[in-house]
């Protein structure tokens, strides 16, 4: 029930109140407590807001998203509500403003049910790096939901909200979408304002959407997108009607040989993906198997650049202006060092250290400049691919969800993002579609990448692909 916005709207038309719908979701939150999805349920404000929306519906003044109940990742600011980036360093921090992306949804009468657990500062691929405990996958409590937006993905599949927001720096929306069987989109870099998103790596971060239907994913993206005077990297390009799907003509689809024959792919992933490609060929689409010789360097390039940006972005957490301050620090330098060391978790420290290293004297050119050069090569190559192709297809992840505590080596964990980081390095829009299941019934996604700012085409083609869903 109320698994998507269409069901919510039908219920409202037949006389159900938004307040009743909220109570239904609150019950599901209670039932799924063990999964540790929500860091905080906004119990008071959600009921007040629901009543207000009910009043607006009654007065026929309601916005396009009246009845939509959203959960937000704990790195998206919502005025007068707490936000912690799942870190001890921001425990009890209260937002002074609302992020632009969220504000646009609120302006259309969406309401926020709570903030969801994630990897600390969005750094992780399994949601095991939260200072507030890991999130369990509602489909199987022994498995991870993926990360870093694991709580937001889990919130949607556990039916605790209509849609949720996450953020995607290297795959943090698409990978958990793959692991939970939900839709998850990362828009083009600059499509959605980053104002009010707690920064991890500013030239990579984008806010994205999780939903149980493509329609909801597209609609929420459409409303969040567009120019914002508070984020000068945000594009002034007009936003098209993503939620109105066009009919799909015959498409040219690029597939990387290095992905098809990748050693990390499980049998199930390999077989499902190959059989989808056959189906598409049979339907008359052109499948171009091309070589992409940079697959092995995507993740290392990503790590040099994102850790560098993170080390700079996270320098604001100094224990002085806001956030955790160590009790026993003496003097300024110790205040910085002790507050940060006690406030940040191990993965965050590891990345700050890596980033500081690649930016430090003597190593800057060999690592940071080198990675920026490789990034240009990757972006140019991607542009060239899109001059001959409409989309790039791959599995979203090389495997379905893995067991909690089963991946211990940081490098192995980083390789979880092998197929998703490409879109963040080149800025392209990408979506994970819940098309596949492995032999044990666990979902994994198909990733579709489109040309920059071709969200409309991305959603329209995805709508065509959904008919290949294997349930």
């Amino acid at each position: 029930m109320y698994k998507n916005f269409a069901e919510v709207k039908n219920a409202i038309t037949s006389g159900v109140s938004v307040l009743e719908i909220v109570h239904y979701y609150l019950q599901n939150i209670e039932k799924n407590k063990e999964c540790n999805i929500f860091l905080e349920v906004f119990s008071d404000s959600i009921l007040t807001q629901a009543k207000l929306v009910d009043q607006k519906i009654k007065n026929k003044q309601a916005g396009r998203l009246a009845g939509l109940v959203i959960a937000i990742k704990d790195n998206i600011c919502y005025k007068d509500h707490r936000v912690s980036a799942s870190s001890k360093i921001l425990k009890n921090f209260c937002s002074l403003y609302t992020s632009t992306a969220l504000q646009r949804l609120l302006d259309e009468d969406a309401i926020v049910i709570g903030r969801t657990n994630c990897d600390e500062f969005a750094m992780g691929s399994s949601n095991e790096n939260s200072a507030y405990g890991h999130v369990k996958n509602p489909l199987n409590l022994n498995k991870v939901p993926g990360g870093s937006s694991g709580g937001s993905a889990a919130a949607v599949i556990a039916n605790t909200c209509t849609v949720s927001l996450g953020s995607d720096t290297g795959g943090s929306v698409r990978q958990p979408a793959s692991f939970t069987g939900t839709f998850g989109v990362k828009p083009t870099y600059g499509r959605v304002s980053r104002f009010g998103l707690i920064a991890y790596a500013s030239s990579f971060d984008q806010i994205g959407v999780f939903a149980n239907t493509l329609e909801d994913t597209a609609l929420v993206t459409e409303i969040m997108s567009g120019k914002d005077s508070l984020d000068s990297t945000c594009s002034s390009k007009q936003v098209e009607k993503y939620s109105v799907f066009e009919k799909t003509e015959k498409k040219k689809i690029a597939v990387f040989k290095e992905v098809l024959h990748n050693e990390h792919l499980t049998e199930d992933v390999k077989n499902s993906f190959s059989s989808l490609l056959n189906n598409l060929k049979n339907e008359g689409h052109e499948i171009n198997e091309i070589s992409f010789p940079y697959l092995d360097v995507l993740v290392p390039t990503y790590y040099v650049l994102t850790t560098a940006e993170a080390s700079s972005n996270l320098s604001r957490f100094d224990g002085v202006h806001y956030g955790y301050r160590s009790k026993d620090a003496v003097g300024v330098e110790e205040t910085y060092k002790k507050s940060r060391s006690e406030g940040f978790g191990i993965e965050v420290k590891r990345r700050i250290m890596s980033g500081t290293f690649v930016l430090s004297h003597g190593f800057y050119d060999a690592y940071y400049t080198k990675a920026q050069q490789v990034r240009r090569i990757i972006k140019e190559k991607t542009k060239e691919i899109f001059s001959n192709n409409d989309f790039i297809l791959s599995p979203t992840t090389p495997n379905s969800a893995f067991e909690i505590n089963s991946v211990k080596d940081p490098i192995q964990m980083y390789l979880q993002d092998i197929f998703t980081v490409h879109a963040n390095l080149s800025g392209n829009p990408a979506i994970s579609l819940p098309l596949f299941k492995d032999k044990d019934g666990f979902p994994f996604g198909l990733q579709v990448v489109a040309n920059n700012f071709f969200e409309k085409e991305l959603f329209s083609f995805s709508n065509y692909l959904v008919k290949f869903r294997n349930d």
Partner: protein
Amino acid sequence: MKIDKSTVLHIAHLARLEVKEEELNQMQEDLEKITDFMDLLNKVDTTGVEPLIFMTEEINVLREDNAVESITQKDALKNAAHKDSDYFRIPKVKG
């Protein structure tokens, strides 16, 4: 890449982090593994390639220079660990 302990401590200082004696070995090992992984970049020939710095396609984003109050002083102090009526308070600097 081989990274010695004094480099780890130097990086930690630059990052304003403390690496305790018992954490030092692990951090050293992790950084070596991570830099080895990053060294894969050397496979790519980047001779003559301009580094890519900005991802946005926007050029010269300008706006009117209007004075707007973003947050009040009260709000700015709201999340401070220590404060008095007008200031952030920090531990004593001079003995």
